[in-house]
């Protein structure tokens, strides 16, 4: 405990929840797909595919169960440029973005690495998934998206 200028005592503390979460077949298959560098969406009765796949159609609320594989490529729809912080998936300043995955309805919220240069981002910029070296069936197996024309 330390005293503030106001005379009140204060003390730092931290809370940890080391939980695991059961994911069910839809999210579970999606995560397992990421481990194999495969991207899945869920097909709706309306004839669309939603990625990442929800368990229920975001429009009709109907239960979704049919998973469809998608190319892990798409286009930037909207983004925000932020300073990199410890624990972020990209090593330089980057964007959080909504990515319209080819063939899917709606967008995928994920990190976008453009090598630290915000001027490279525009609406419609073609991007592809960058996979983590070691994949464990978790969301961060898809490390981030990056421009398709990145030199490899």
């Amino acid at each position, binding site marked *: 405990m330390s005293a*503030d*200028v*106001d*005379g*009140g005592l*204060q003390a*730092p*503390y931290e*809370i940890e929840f080391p939980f695991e*979460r059961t*994911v069910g077949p839809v*999210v579970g298959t999606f995560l397992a797909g990421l481990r194999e560098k495969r991207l899945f969406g869920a097909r709706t009765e309306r004839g669309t595919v*939603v990625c*990442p796949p*929800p368990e229920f159609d*975001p429009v009709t609320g109907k239960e979704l169960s049919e998973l469809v594989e998608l190319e892990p490529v798409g286009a930037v*729809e*909207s*983004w*925000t*440029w*932020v300073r990199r*912080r410890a*624990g*972020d*998936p990209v090593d330089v300043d980057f964007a*959080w*973005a*909504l990515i319209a995955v080819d063939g899917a309805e*709606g*967008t*995928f*919220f*994920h*990190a976008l690495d453009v090598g630290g240069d*915000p001027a490279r981002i525009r*609406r419609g910029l073609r991007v592809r998934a960058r996979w983590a070296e070691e994949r464990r069936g*978790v*969301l*961060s197996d898809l490390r981030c998206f990056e421009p398709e024309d990145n030199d490899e």
Partner: protein
Amino acid sequence: MREIAVVGSAQSACLAANRRDDMAGILLPVIREALSGIPLDRDRVDFVCSGSHDFHEGRTFAYIDSLDAVGAWPPIAESHVEMDAAWAFYEAWSWLQLGHGDIALVYGIGRGSLPRDLDQVVPTQLDPYYLTPLRPHRDAIAGIQACALLQSGVTTEHEMARIVARSLADAQANPHAQVAGEYEVDELLAAPYVAAPLRGHDVSPVGDAASVVVLAAGDVARSLCERPAWVRGIDHRMDGHYPGSRDLTRAPSANLAAARATATAGFAASEVDIAELHIEYSAQEPLLVRELGLGAATAINPSGGPLAGRPTTAAGLIRIAEAAKGIRSGGARRALAHATNGQALQQNLVCLLEGDPA
């Protein structure tokens, strides 16, 4: 429907960090001020309802602490929502509608300063499968929404800065404001981004404060208040939570809540003199103006709004208190209060208030 009105309110100063008081210590003076301003003895309060959020307080059932400032012994009728206290206001209004009593006291208390880093806490409130594991920046979804609003032409960075300048100028007359002052638009536009296109001042400053609103029904309200602010219509709706499944340039739930409130109120948002909008980011104001159908004659956030101070889980209730104050003071005939929860205006509450003809 019963006639129910706001008959009193009070608020503590919005502080970036109150290190002197515990929850009850912040709240007690505010409850005293609200009751003594009517005046009303607390024994006459039939129902107490509050809003707060454990993830900001860092303890489970943290709000129990605040009951020490309510006088919970002998036992009282009491309830709590784990969200903005505007929803506690809705619960109290419903409770009075059911005829369980005549007077309700609603409070919101939040201390956004207790988390050492909001980037740790905000992601925990997101979808646990597809968003929390990414641990996005606290303002990431709002920044993406602002980007979408700019691209679609709903607003411009210049307009966002104008909204901030107007809000902070208006806040100079608000003794509770956390930030206030005269700023030039160009000066604001020269500030660095925190989550582009959002600059620091585009993000409402999170802090610590408590807000109290007293509601009363029918003739009890008339006996307590010279000019009650009657709740003519109130409704809340929500959209889906995943930002990729929504069109972030729209807020259909705000639109629907306004339509529903209008249907019972008998007047529309376009007819109000003042509107207090729970915008957590400047770019959201033009979007809400569209969705609610506000007219050019309406004064928006004359208190300065949340851009002058966003006490966690009290910011929405403060909108209702400020809108009602406009009516109780005789300055406004009709007013709209809006509150939000979630990311990018996911959940919206609209309350239409009216004073008796002068």
